[in-house]
């Protein structure tokens, strides 16, 4: 199927999100769509999938002009969109979600559950994932939810699948499985549009690329003629040097800021480590290995047994975020939209909220001080906004993340937990955040970064804890920190024989 | 039951009376429930083998449920029903008759309903007439009287009282605004009076001579509003008429600085005692004399209480009467 979008313009009020974009997908092609946060990628795809109408512009399928007014019509044309944000109904079961609005019914008009479940199982088998179609979606971990979203698109016969950042929560294995299914389908003539901020993935799976910047198409071409730096430059309009990170020499203080002993809880066991002032510690592992749970336990969101010692003081075991805050432990949470931002509140208030909870002792708030606080963090973190009284949702994802970071910097925290801090953030901003993390470390803060992306870990970490099935499998220092090593330990290859290592090699 | 009449003692039957009444949704019904319970106690001690159960409901269908439950019990001989809404209980009343249980209806009418022992109620039409005649006389030397009317709700009580009064008042009585419907609530009436005072000119307010109401609790609200009025107009209202005989309201007029007089027509929660007495008298085959039988209805007579003269009782006489003592025998809340 040949899909052509011509002269697409999309205005959101006074904002022009797309400005005369031309975009073509040929049959059996995997197109990479690239661009910074807010460049307009999702908007373009939403227009194609009928989520909203374009302000102007035309869409042709196989040369014929079509009007895609809603998702149903897009489906009828064989177009399916996997949305960037998880878009599942948590209260429904997996199979109900997958067949939502496309239910199979019997001749009396009643739902045919058996048939739907068996078709779900078939798709999951193909994807090599184990998900029970009957389980409620709310019980699934984030990664499985994303897999369900993908499976939902694969369930029906279609000719163009659009994937808007499908892999943010997936492990390497799952990504590999996904890619092999994509290749299979491509060979049978299905086209894909693939959006991701993980540049290596683009090079691995895509053939052609389109680059959007500020709603305009700035480049298109063949990926064979491109390298990572070139693409990055097209996206952000300047070059990024990661020398500054790779050539960095690891150094941190002697003083122990945080000592964790035998931390045990739901999903992790016997976690012990010391974190020094000025040290950046990465904690990584495959999904389900306990990263999220450890982060939550350290911050006091979920209960644990064991000891967490800050400056020689034992924290009260149990779930007490305020206790953590009082001892200078703060967290930039994963899933910014659900867990980080106060969406109806202004940027001022979002920055000040941490201060209110820890330091603010008086009854009233002085808006002058609030504004000074904002200006200070705006300068320190180069937050791009002129209108701090607007809700935080008026900012791009990266700037929202900076605001959350600023929230905690205002509390003078000594220990900072970063849980997937660059999820869904474009390369340019990612690099800014890495720089900020390193600056903070240099200023003596003790930092833990929870991440599954090796390049990210390598750029900032002084040492790295690799988890396997909820336990520490290895603690690597900077010299030992190679992608191969991290993968080796996180798959448990050292423990469970060569099988996993073999498996891993085959994919790389 | 004296020992000289052993035959009759052997014949003393046991009776069960079910009393179905509305829950107190304002003072009147509330106090009625208490009177009903007290009278039931008194009658049960007076008559051997008499059992009276009292059920109240907040809504017509609650009352139907109570009736169904009573009938399902299978052992009631008579039901004394005070319907929330006469017409709404017609069907349930029919079921009572159909299952061979006797029925006494109190206070609210079920129109064109046959087969019951009797309907007993305060004489609402009569009260309306008395009120009309009273104001005719009170304002005899005035050529034109402007008045406001505050009623309770849309029940037969309201329409009968209106009917009685409208029948007798002279044409010189001019109602100056739509009838205010208060839902029998002091606070609602108060707000309505305040709004009226503030929405009208000095002349209009000063021309107001009379307020007609159907309940003392409404009068409380009106007096609150009138006493609090601080606008430029002078209050020239000479009389407020009402139905009831509540001590609280009398006290209000004894203490007010306004020149307003008060005339209320006795209508008390204790009336329900008569309905119970009628029921018991019927079961035991005794003669009942507590109310006047008019056109097949037992009408409990009313009388006027006023500090404006020309009434059956003035406030003090009323307070010294037996009727007053019975009315307040349930204590004061």
């Amino acid at each position: 199927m040949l899909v052509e979008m011509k002269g697409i313009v999309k205005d959101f009020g006074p904002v022009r999100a797309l400005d005369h974009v031309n975009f073509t997908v040929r049959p059996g092609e995997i197109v990479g769509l690239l661009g910074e946060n807010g460049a307009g990628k999702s908007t373009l795809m939403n227009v194609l999938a009928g989520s909203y109408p374009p302000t102007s512009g035309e869409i042709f399928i196989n040369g014929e002009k079509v009007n895609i007014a809603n998702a149903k019509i897009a489906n009828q044309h064989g177009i399916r969109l996997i949305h960037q944000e998880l878009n599942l109904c948590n209260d429904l079961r997996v199979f109900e979600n997958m067949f939502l609005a496309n239910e199979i019914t019997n001749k009396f008009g009643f739902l045919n559950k058996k048939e739907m479940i068996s078709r779900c199982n078939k798709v999951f088998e193909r994807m090599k994932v184990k998900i029970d179609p009957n389980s409620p979606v709310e019980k699934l971990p984030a990664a499985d939810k994303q897999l369900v979203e993908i499976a939902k698109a694969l369930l029906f016969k279609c000719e163009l699948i659009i994937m808007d950042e499908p892999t943010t929560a997936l492990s390497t294995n799952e990504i590999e499985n996904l890619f092999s299914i994509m290749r299979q389908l491509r060979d049978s003539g299905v086209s894909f549009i693939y959006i991701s901020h993980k540049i290596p993935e683009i090079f691995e799976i895509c053939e052609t690329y389109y680059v959007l910047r500020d709603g305009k198409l700035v480049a298109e071409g063949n990926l064979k003629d491109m390298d990572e730096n070139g693409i990055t430059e097209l996206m952000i309009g300047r070059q990024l040097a990661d020398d500054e990170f790779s050539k960095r020499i690891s150094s941190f203080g002697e003083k122990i800021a945080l000592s964790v002993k035998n931390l045990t809880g739901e999903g992790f066991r016997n976690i012990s480590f010391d974190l020094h002032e000025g040290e950046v510690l990465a904690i990584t592992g495959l999904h389900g290995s306990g990263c999220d749970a450890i982060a939550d336990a350290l911050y006091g969101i979920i209960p644990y047994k064991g000891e967490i010692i800050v400056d020689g003081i034992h924290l009260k075991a149990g779930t007490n975020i305020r206790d953590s805050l009082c001892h200078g432990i703060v967290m930039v949470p994963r899933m910014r939209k659900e867990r980080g931002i106060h969406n109806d509140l202004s940027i001022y208030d979002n920055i000040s909220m941490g201060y209110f909870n820890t330091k603010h002792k008086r009854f009233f708030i002085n808006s002058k001080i609030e504004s000074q606080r904002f200006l200070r963090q705006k300068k320190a973190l180069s937050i791009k906004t002129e209108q701090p009284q607007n809700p935080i949702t008026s900012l791009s994802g990266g700037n929202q993340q900076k605001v959350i970071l600023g929230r905690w910097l205002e509390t003078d925290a000594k220990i900072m937990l970063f849980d997937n801090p660059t999820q869904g953030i474009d390369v340019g901003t990612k690099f800014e955040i890495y720089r900020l993390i390193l600056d903070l470390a240099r200023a003596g803060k003790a930092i833990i970064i929870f991440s599954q992306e090796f390049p990210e870990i390598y750029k900032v970490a002084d040492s790295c804890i690799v988890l396997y099935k909820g336990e520490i499998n290895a603690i690597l220092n900077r010299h030992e920190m190679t992608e191969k090593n991290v993968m080796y330990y996180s798959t448990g290859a050292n423990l469970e024989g060569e099988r996993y290592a073999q498996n891993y090699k085959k994919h790389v | 039951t004296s020992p000289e009449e052993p035959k009759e003692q052997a014949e003393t039957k046991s009776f069960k009376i079910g009393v179905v009444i509305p829950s107190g949704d304002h003072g009147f019904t509330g106090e009625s429930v208490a009177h009903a319970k007290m009278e039931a106690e008194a009658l049960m001690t007076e008559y051997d083998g008499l059992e009276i159960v009292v059920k109240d409901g907040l809504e017509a269908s609650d009352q139907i449920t109570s009736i169904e439950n009573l009938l399902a019990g299978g052992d009631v001989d008579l039901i004394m029903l005070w319907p929330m809404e006469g017409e709404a209980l017609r069907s349930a009343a029919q079921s009572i008759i159909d299952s061979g249980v006797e029925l006494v209806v109190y206070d609210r009418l079920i129109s064109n309903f046959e087969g019951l022992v009797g309907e007993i109620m305060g004489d609402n039409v009569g009260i309306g007439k008395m009120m009309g005649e009273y104001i005719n006389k009170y304002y005899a030397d005035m050529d034109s009287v402007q008045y406001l009317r505050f009623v309770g709700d849309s029940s037969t009580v309201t329409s009968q009282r209106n009917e009685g009064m409208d029948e007798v008042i002279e044409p010189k009585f001019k109602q100056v605004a739509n009838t205010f419907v208060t839902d029998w609530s002091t606070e609602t009436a108060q707000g309505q009076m305040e709004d009226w005072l503030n929405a009208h000119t000095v002349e209009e307010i000063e021309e107001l001579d009379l307020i007609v109401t159907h309940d003392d609790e409404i009068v409380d609200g009106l007096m609150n509003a009138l006493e609090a009025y601080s606008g430029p107009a002078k209050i020239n209202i000479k009389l407020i008429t009402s139905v009831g005989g509540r001590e609280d309201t009398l006290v209000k007029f004894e203490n007010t600085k306004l020149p307003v007089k008060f005339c209320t027509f006795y209508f008390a929660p204790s009336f329900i005692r008569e309905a119970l007495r009628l029921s018991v008298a019927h079961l035991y085959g005794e003669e009942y004399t507590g109310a006047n039988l008019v056109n097949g209805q037992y009408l409990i007579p009313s009388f006027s209480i006023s500090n404006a003269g020309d009434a059956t009782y003035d406030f003090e006489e009323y307070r010294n009467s037996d009727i007053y003592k019975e009315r307040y025998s349930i204590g004061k809340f």
Partner: protein
Amino acid sequence: MLKTIKNMSNKTKYPKDLYKMLITEYSFILSFILLVIIAASVNKNFFTWTNISNIFVQSSMVGLIAMGMSMVISAGLIDISVGSQVAFIGSFGILVLNNTGSIFIMLLFCIVVGFILGGLNGLMVTKGGIPAMIATMAMQSACRSIINHFGSGGPFTVNKEYYESLRMLAVGGIYITPKFKIPYLMIIFCAAGIIFDIIMKHTKFGKYIYAVGSNETSARLSGINVDLVKACTFIVTGIMCGITSLIYASRTTAVAAASAATGFEMDAIAAVAIGGTSMSGGKGKIIGTFIGVLMFKMISNILTAADVSTYLNGAISAAIIVIAVLMQKLQNSKKSS
């Protein structure tokens, strides 16, 4: 949880599933059984057919409304206009009956007006973007006000000549033996329960309702016409109000403008909540609502039998509702930990 679900998976047979569901999902069944025990001990007649069928008959009005309310709440909405709708439709329904003499036309009228009122609620909420609470509050107030206005002379009363035939619905039934009758209202209530259960579990419309209540955006992005689904839940509720108003008229043969069916909305919402439907939408079971309504009536049955002051009914029902909802929460939290 994951493990239990997996264990429960395809291999187990249906009867076993049902048994497990009874234990794990319907915690309130426990409260129900408890209530039955209390009822039976307070009321010697509890297990007589007359009493049991009577409970069903008394439940039928709030019951039908609660079915619609389950849909509305499952879709993440609320409808507090139901009581006034019943009064409104019933009042004018009686006028229609008095003027046409046909109960069938009256039924038709009730359903059509219910459809319209529900549709208006739906329009206000979907096209007007007015929060359901406010929109239906306005509807409540408007309906009551209009019938009060038209009925200011008193209640709306069925003419004597249609009286007996209308009453048949409320008092009649199917006689199995001359002494043993299944009341029509009991049949209607049970039938409605079954139909709504099937709709919610086995039809697209049911799934769409849960999807909309659970996550409106994803429902929309999946291609569901969210506004239509929402409007339909209000319309279904309106129609249930129409049918209920016929039952009301038949039971009382008169509708008192000011007081008829007041409080039905709260009873229905409480029954839905007791039945385990989540107030924020997305989750819920009709059987829960069904039992919730019965529990509600049984409470009043018990209180009457125990001769508790009517005034205290409110407090006791409130306590029972709170306990029932707490028990569910407790069980849920046990399940998930």
